[in-house]
Structures are given as structure tokens and as C-alpha cells.
């Protein structure tokens, strides 16, 4: 199953359309579930299902079940997928296409790509489609982000002092 999520706030039709194009071009047979922030989307393909919004329980259940995860480059989705070791690809929202207020998602993916060479964040439609195939057919020994969370111990000591009790 492919799970697609555009986050909880804004629509992202470019991402949705790119996924749907790939699914119909390749006659992908398994289920595709897309969380879109939009009403009134209907699919002619029987294996494609749209949902407007998901609560965190439903979201985590689908994220846990999916084979690959395709998402906007929002940190919530990136962190949740990293925690579940998901094979994932991220499309950053671009301000000049009216997909967000500013280009911080571009900054996010550039910094994560610099840190994690296998972090997948294609920009063009062709690359996006190639990345789906790489993830699905194991061409990349792709990989989750390793959540080291080097900040948590410092937060603990700021909140509880150096000898914090668990």
C-alpha cells in the first residue's frame, strides 16, 4: 500500500496529481490512500482512495501499514515516518507555486539531504516517478532517517537539572 499525506493544513494538488499519474501510467495494482486536505476528490481507479483529513491515530495506523510513504516535506510527517523506519520520499512545497507562505520546506530538504545522502526529495516530476519506483522495487537500498535526537538530553537537563529523575 502506498500512503500519501500532504499534512494537516494546506492542499497540495501538484503532489496528488504526480502520484495519480504514476499510478495510472504503471497500472499499480495495490491500494493507494491519499490524504489531501480537499473534499470532492473522486477516483476512477478502484484501488485509489482519498481522505480529506486524518486524526493522529488513523494517520499512524496507515503510516505503519504502508510499503512506501509519499509526503510534503513537513517536519511532522518526516519525524513520524523516521520513527517507524519508513521508506519515504518528500516533495517540498514551493512558495512561488502558492503551495506555502515561504520556502522553508525547500530549506528543510536541502539540509536533510546534506546530512543524510539517501534522503529522497525529488524536484521534477520525472525524478519523483523514478523515486517511487526505486522505493517500491528496492533499487535504492533506501533507508530511513536515523533519529538520533541529540537535543532531547539537553532539553531534559534544562527542564529537570543535571540529575533529572526518570
Amino acid at each position: 500500500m502506498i500512503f500519501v499525506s500532504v499534512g494537516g493544513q494546506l492542499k497540495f494538488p501538484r503532489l496528488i496529481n504526480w502520484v495519480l499519474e504514476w499510478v495510472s501510467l504503471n497500472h499499480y495494482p495495490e491500494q493507494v490512500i491519499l490524504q489531501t486536505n480537499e473534499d470532492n476528490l473522486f477516483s476512477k481507479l478502484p484501488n485509489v482512495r482519498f481522505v480529506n483529513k486524518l486524526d493522529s491515530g488513523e494517520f499512524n495506523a496507515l503510516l505503519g501499514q504502508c510499503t512506501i510513504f509519499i509526503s510534503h516535506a513537513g517536519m511532522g510527517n518526516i519525524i513520524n515516518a523516521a520513527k517507524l523506519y519508513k521508506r519515504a520520499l518528500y516533495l517540498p512545497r514551493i512558495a512561488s507555486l502558492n503551495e506555502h507562505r515561504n520556502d522553508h520546506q525547500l530549506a528543510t530538504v536541502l539540509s536533510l539531504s546534506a546530512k543524510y545522502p539517501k534522503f529522497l526529495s525529488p524536484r521534477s516530476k520525472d525524478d519523483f516517478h523514478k523515486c517511487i519506483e526505486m522505493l517500491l522495487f528496492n533499487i535504492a537500498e533506501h533507508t530511513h532517517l536515523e533519529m538520533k535526537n541529540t537535543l532531547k538530553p539537553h532539553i531534559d537537563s534544562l527542564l529537570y537539572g543535571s540529575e533529572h529523575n526518570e
Partner: protein
Amino acid sequence: MSNIILAVASFGGHLVQLENLVSKKADTIFISTIKSKNINDIIVDCNIGTPIKTLLCFIQSFFYICKYSPDCIITTGALPGLCFIITGKLLGKKTIWVDSIANADKLSSSGKIAKYFATVCLTQHPKLASKRVQFMGGIL
């Protein structure tokens, strides 16, 4: 010893980061803009384009800081978190701002203000550290 902590974040990526940085303990109060699991109280969501809601959020921050009298306030943003930082400063509380890891090439607009009010202001990117902003690590 009791250590009351107010942990505040807007729903979405901000909240996911907060929940991965602050342990859920008996005396930790989580506040966000949408009801979900583990959230104790709800505040109004606001942004730079919603001045009335921002004012309302300031009033709520005053109310909750007085209600819980926390030892420390920590937030990962965005503007609702900044309201708590500013009100917390006015009420003499220890405050911690953690700028979202999404902000990789400049501090968020709220973070640029928070650094003048927060007791501790953190970025998750070493290159964004400055006089008032420290880097200690990141969530990824």
C-alpha cells in the same frame, strides 16, 4: 520535588517535535491548538494574519500561566508558542524556545522575536547559532 512544565506548540510538525523533546510526566501540561491524545488544554490558533486571534491567544497564555504557575515554559512554536514566551517573560517565568528544525536557513519569524524574550533560545541548525541563539543538537 514537583517541577511543573508547560509545553506548548501549534498542531502539526511543531507538536510532533515538542512531543519528541519533552517527556510526558505527571506535572507536564501539554497545550496545543487542536484537541488530540495527550493534550491537556486547547488554545486558539493564530498567525501573523490574524491579529484578533493573536490577542486572544495572549489572553489565554496569561490565563494558563496563572492557572498552572509553571516552573518552566517550553515551546517549539509557532506564534501561539511565542505568546507564551512573551507572557512568561512578563510574569518572570523561565522560558525555552526551540526553533523548528524546518527552519534550516534562517530562524522562524516568531523565533526572531522569541530570542529577545526567552530565557533560552535554541536553533536545531549549528549555522544559525548567534549571540542570543544557541545550538545544542537537533531532533534529526
